[in-house]
């Protein structure tokens, strides 16, 4: 079972306590954006077989949104961080690079 540590309450929460919320760090598009920008924002996803940054909600706990770095091929979790973080924090990136030499965050 997938276990993620909630960065707010510090609880190692099991998957049943959490709700997945899809890819993190999406660039939001607003009124006046092109159709292409809207398509990218609403539908295009990185969908990597490997390191994935994603949104989760601690539904049956503190109820707050947070972000996680996880490998979709092995379910290995590299770390979690608060939802207000605009880009993956350096300590998480270092952990990922240590475990996945040569990995680079896709543009």
């Amino acid at each position, binding site marked *: 079972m997938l276990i993620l540590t909630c960065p707010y309450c510090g609880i190692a929460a099991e998957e049943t306590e959490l709700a997945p919320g899809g890819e993190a760090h999406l660039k939001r598009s607003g009124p006046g954006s092109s159709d292409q920008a809207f398509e990218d924002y609403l539908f295009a996803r990185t969908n990597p077989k490997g390191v994935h940054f994603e949104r989760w909600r601690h539904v049956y706990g503190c109820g707050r949104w947070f972000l996680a770095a996880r490998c*979709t091929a092995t379910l290995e979790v590299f770390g979690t961080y608060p939802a207000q973080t605009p880009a993956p924090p350096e300590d998480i990136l270092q952990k990922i690079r240590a475990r996945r030499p040569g990995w680079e965050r896709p543009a």
Partner: protein
Amino acid sequence: MRRYSVFAIAREALRWHQGWERAWASPEPRARYDAIIVGAGGHGLATAYYLGKNHGITNVAVIEKGWLGGGNTGRNTTIIRSNYLQDPSAAIYEKARALYESLSQELNYNVMFSPRGLLMLAQTHHEVRGYLRTVHANALQGVQTEFIGPDRVRQLVPIIRLDGPRYPVLGALYQARGGTARHDAVAWGYARACSAMGMHILQNCPVTGVRSEGGRVTGVDTARGFIGCDKLGIVVAGHSGQLAEMAGFRLPVEAVALQALVSEPVKPCMDVVVMANTVHGYMSQSDKGEMVIGGGTDGFNNFTQRGSHQHIEETLRALIETFPMLSRLKMLRQWGGIVDMTGDRSPIIGKTPLGNCFINCGWGTGGFKAIPGSGWAMAELMARGEPGPLAAAFSLDRFREGRFIDESVAAGVAH
């Protein structure tokens, strides 16, 4: 190809079954083909078959990283139906269902199509209204379905409990010609027919790159070297995003795990397929007697071909209310597949930003039923370079243009 027949069985019985030939060849790859299809699952093999049969293109290779039919074609719950709400969906799924009716004769391979009837239970008033709407839509689309009341449900499914405490059965959307088929045999049958037309099926041959020149595809790099082609079809289900990346474009697709499980075999007790969408479960009985049970997907991106245990528990917990006999059954095995989900839960069959490269993906949780229709439409697209009437609505650009074929609303989970 020597045809299978009662005479063939008699002939072979007399010579100790020494004369059966291999169902398909394992040839060395040629330097180039008119068309290459990546993915030898049901959809890929069906595409190759109809390329040869309908369009006369037989210089074709189907390239597979594992063994043919070893992905989602070998991992589904084998359900076939076409009771969809939206017109483009009903058209392609009904085409597939109609082709399944005569597929065994056409391929000279028993795919064990069993039009045993399929019920989608209405367990809330909202669902009753929804299915009544679907029945009317199906009448206009030429898909034969009807809405039946609880008494008729009881007749068709004696083991059902109609008056469950949470979700009583209020009726069902019934498609009498829906049913099941033998999933492996569909892949094997198409593979044998493709091989007989001289096509090459290259197994254990992962594609590692897509080469192009001047915006047009020129071939693929594989574990067995570069193979050139005029046209490329990507038909790989779970790994569509990875292939698209090799070809230099992105897809509105996410990969998630979907699970199914079977019980220990029991005596025949249910000769129809029952889907209960409110509680996220569906069930049929296999010819071996196992109850074949499917549930919902995990909500997070996953390439591991195994799902979360609590989803099995959820599915069974919900189904036990409607089928109390399940509580005494031991579950025998469980498995998972990687399905690619699109934003509107409908597939993508269309051209891609790379010239002469076509894609067929996004079948989500319901690809098996569509195999013949999907292959038919994809072959037409690859042969003519433009989508035919079946594929036109499923193009990749519909997400930009907002032309959704929204089956996520119409079908919920079991779609």
